[in-house]
C-alpha cells in the first residue's frame, strides 16, 4: 500500500520581509519521484532546506513518513540529503567525512563498509578518498555528498540539483539509483532545471514560481492544465511560470545584434 512519504501543508518561508515560499502544500507518496521545478529564486531550495531541517519554516506543517519535522532526530533519520551548493567539512578527507556521517547516524562498520565499497567504486571516487575535500573538483565533492546521503539507506531522498557537476557516467548511475530506490518503496524529491531529466525520471512534478505552486501532477496532468495536448515539459514549464511571454522577441533582438 502506498504510504505518505512527505506531507507539506501551508508552508511559508520568510527572509525578513521577503516571502520566499508562500503558503504551499503538496504530498509525495512512497514509490514516487517528485520533481520540484521552478525558475531561479522561485523557492525550491528554501522548500527543500525546510524539509531537511536546515531552515526553520515561518509557518506550516510538515511530516516525513508520519513523523513531524519538529521531532528533528526522528524526521532527519529518514532522510538522505544532497544540497545544491555542496560545501561539506572541507578540511576533512572523504574518508573522515563519511566516518563522521556514519558516527552521527549510528551506522555499524560491517554494514557501512560493504555499501561504501560499492558506492565509491560506482562513482569512481576511491582514489580521492584520502585527499582533503577542499582539493576535490566540484563533481567529486558532489559524489561525496551523494554517497553520504545514500549510506544509511534512507526512506526519503532529497536531492537539490544533484546532477550539476557530475560526469555522464555518474549522472546515469545516480538516476538509476533513484529509480531503484523508488521501486523499492522509498520516495525521492528532486529539484532540477533540466526539464528532459525531470520528464524522464519523475513520477510527478510540482512547478513552483514566485514562492507558490503553480502546477502539480504528472506531465499529462500539466498538459491538461495548460490546455495543450502536446508539448514537452519545458514548454509546459515556460507557460505556467509565465516566462514564455516576450521570450521570442528577446531572442530575436539578441540574434540581430
Amino acid at each position, binding site marked *: 500500500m502506498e504510504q505518505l512519504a512527505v506531507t507539506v501543508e501551508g508552508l511559508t518561508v520568510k*527572509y*525578513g520581509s*521577503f516571502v*520566499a515560499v508562500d503558503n504551499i502544500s503538496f504530498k509525495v507518496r512512497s514509490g514516487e519521484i517528485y520533481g520540484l521545478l521552478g525558475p531561479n529564486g522561485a523557492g525550491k*531550495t*528554501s522548500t527543500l*532546506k525546510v524539509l*531537511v*531541517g*536546515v*531552515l*526553520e519554516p515561518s509557518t506550516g506543517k510538515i511530516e516525513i513518513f508520519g513523523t513531524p519535522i519538529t521531532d*528533528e*532526530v*526522528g*524526521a*532527519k*533519520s529518514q*532522510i538522505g*540529503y544532497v*544540497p545544491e*551548493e*555542496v*560545501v*561539506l*567539512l*572541507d*578540511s*576533512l*578527507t572523504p*574518508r*573522515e567525512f*563519511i*566516518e*563522521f*556521517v*556514519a*558516527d*552521527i*547516524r*549510528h*551506522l*555499524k*562498520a560491517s554494514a*557501512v*563498509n560493504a555499501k*561504501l*565499497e560499492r558506492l*565509491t567504486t560506482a562513482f569512481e571516487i*576511491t*582514489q*580521492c*578518498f*584520502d*585527499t*582533503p575535500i*577542499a*582539493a576535490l573538483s566540484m563533481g567529486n565533492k558532489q559524489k561525496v*555528498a551523494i554517497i553520504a546521503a545514500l549510506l544509511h539507506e534512507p526512506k526519503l531522498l532529497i536531492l537539490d540539483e544533484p546532477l550539476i557537476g557530475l560526469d555522464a557516467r555518474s549522472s546515469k548511475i545516480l538516476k538509476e539509483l533513484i529509480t531503484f530506490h523508488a521501486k523499492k518503496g522509498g520516495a525521492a524529491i528532486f529539484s532540477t532545471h533540466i526539464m528532459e531529466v525531470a520528464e524522464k525520471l519523475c513520477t510527478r512534478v510540482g512547478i513552483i514560481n514566485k514562492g507558490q505552486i503553480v502546477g502539480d501532477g504528472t506531465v499529462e496532468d500539466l498538459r491538461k492544465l495548460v490546455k495543450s495536448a502536446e508539448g514537452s515539459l519545458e514548454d509546459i514549464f515556460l507557460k505556467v511560470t509565465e516566462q514564455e511571454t516576450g521570450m521570442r522577441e528577446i531572442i530575436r533582438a539578441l540574434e540581430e545584434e
Partner: protein
Amino acid sequence: MKVSELWRLSSTIYREISFQSIFSLRSGATLPQRGRTSINQLAKRAKTNTLISKIITSIFIGIFGFMMLFASTTTMGTLEPLRESALVGAISAFLAVVLFLIIIMGLQVSTTMISSKIVETLSVFPLTREDTSKVVFLCLIRIFDLPLITATLTLLVTYAFLGGSPLGFLASLLGIIVTGIFALTLTIGLAKFFYSKVASGGGRSKWKTLLRIIFMFVWILPSFGTYIVVNFAVEIARSFTAFTQTFSSTLQLLVIAYPFSFGFLVSFASSLQNISYPILSLSIAASLAYSLLAFYALRWLTRTIRRMGAAGAAGAMRETVRDTIVKPRTPWVGIIRKDLRVASRAPSLASILLLPAIQTVVLAIAFSSFSEVGFSTAMGILTGMSVTMLLLSPTLFSIEGLGSAYTLSFPLEKKTLISAKTTLIAFIYMLSLIVLSAVAFLMGRDFTYILTFGGIQTFSILAASMIELLIIANKYWKKGFSLSNIYAKLPTYIMILLLGIVIVSIPMTIAFVTYILMEQLTIPIFLISVLSEFMLATFIVTREK
C-alpha cells in the same frame, strides 16, 4: 598602468581577501539567502573586522614598543656602557616583537591570499604579468600597512624622544625596514608552508597525522611566541640587555645575529664613545648582510605570491588509497574526533585549543616570583586559567558552523553535541593542569594548592562550559554558526562569557569566604559548591533534545 590605478585595483582585491579570510571560518554556513542588505552588512563587517585586527596589532606594537624602549633604557642606570647595552637590548627586543606581532596578525589573511586563487582571477583582466604582480604586492602592503607604519613611527619617535642621534635615527629606520620585510616574507612563507603541508595535506596513516600535527605546531609557534612576548615585554627587553652585558667579548659575536646586529648598530650610531671597532665593523657588516637578505626576500616574496596564487588548490597532495574502510563510533566520539581533525588543519582553532596550556605556563611563571604559592596565589592562577577555558566553548561550537548548511540535516541531538564539546574542554583543562604540574616540578615549587583546587575547579569549568554551549546552541542552531559570527555579535559574545565567569566565580568566592572564616572547611565547601553547579548544569542540558 599607473601606480595610482594599481593601488586602487589592489583595494578591491584586498576587500575580497578580507571577506574570504573572515568568512572562510564560516565556510558552508547558512548565509542569508535574501536581502542584499544582509550580505552587504557581512561584507562591511569583514572589512571592519580586518581593520580592527590591524588597529589592535598597531596598538600592541605602539604600547609594547614604547614600554620596551622607554622602560628598559631609563631604568638600567645612566652609566654610558650600561645605557648603550640597554639600547642594544631594547632595540633588538622591539624588532623581535614587531616581527612576531606582524606575523601572527597576517597569517590568517595571508593563507587566504595564497589559497584564494586571487591572481588567477586577476589574470583574466587586461593586465600585464608585471602589473598583476604589483597589484598583489600592493595588496600585501594593504594587509600590513597600519602595523608597519606604527612600528616605524614608534621606533623613530621613541628613539628621538630618548635623545638619539641622526645617524642612530637612520640605523633605526634601516632596522625597521628590514624587520618589516622579514615579517612579510616569514608570514607568506609560513602561509605557504601551512597551505602545502597542513591545509591541503590528506593522508590516513598515523605517521601522516603525526606529521600534520608537527607541521601545525611549527605553524602556530609564532603565535605562542607573540603571546609570551606580549606578556613579558619589559622582562624580555631587560633580558636582552642583560644578555648583551653579561656575555664575554667573544660571545659579543651575538652582534652578527638578527636582531642584535641592528641593536648594536643603533647603539653605536647613538654614541660614538667607548666604541669597540671590531664589534662596530661586525655590526655594520651584519646589518648590510641582513639588508641584502631583505632585498632578496622581497624578490622571493613577489614571485611566490604570484606563483602560489595562480596554482591555488591544484597543488594538493594525492594519496595512494588502498581501501575505503571506515570505523564508525558513537555520535559523541564522532563529534570529538571530527573537531580534533578540523582543528588539526585550522591554525586559528588549534592555537585557541592550545591556548589554555600556554596561558597556564605564562601564569605559573608570572606567579612563581611569589615567595609562597599559597591559597590566594592559587586562586589567582585558577581565575586566569578559568577565563581562558571559557573562551573555548564558542570556539569549539564555531566548528559546527563549517558546512552547517549541510550538516544541520543530520539527526543530531543538542545534548550529544554539548556533552561531546564539554568532554573535549575537560581534556584541555586536564592538559593545562598537567602542564602546570610539569612547570611546578621544573621550577621546584610546591603547587599542591593549585593542583588540589584546580582539580576540584574542573567541575565548575565544565558547568560553565555546558551553559555557555547550551545558550549558543539554542541561539544559533538554525542560523549556522561561526567564530566570525559570534565575534560580529560582540554583545552576545560578551554576555555568554560574562555568564561563564559568574558561574566559575561563585564557588571560588565561596571558597574565599570559607577560607577566611573556617580555613579547615575550605576544600569540602569548595567541592560541594562546584559539584552542585555541575549537577545543575548537567540536569539542564540533559533535558534538551
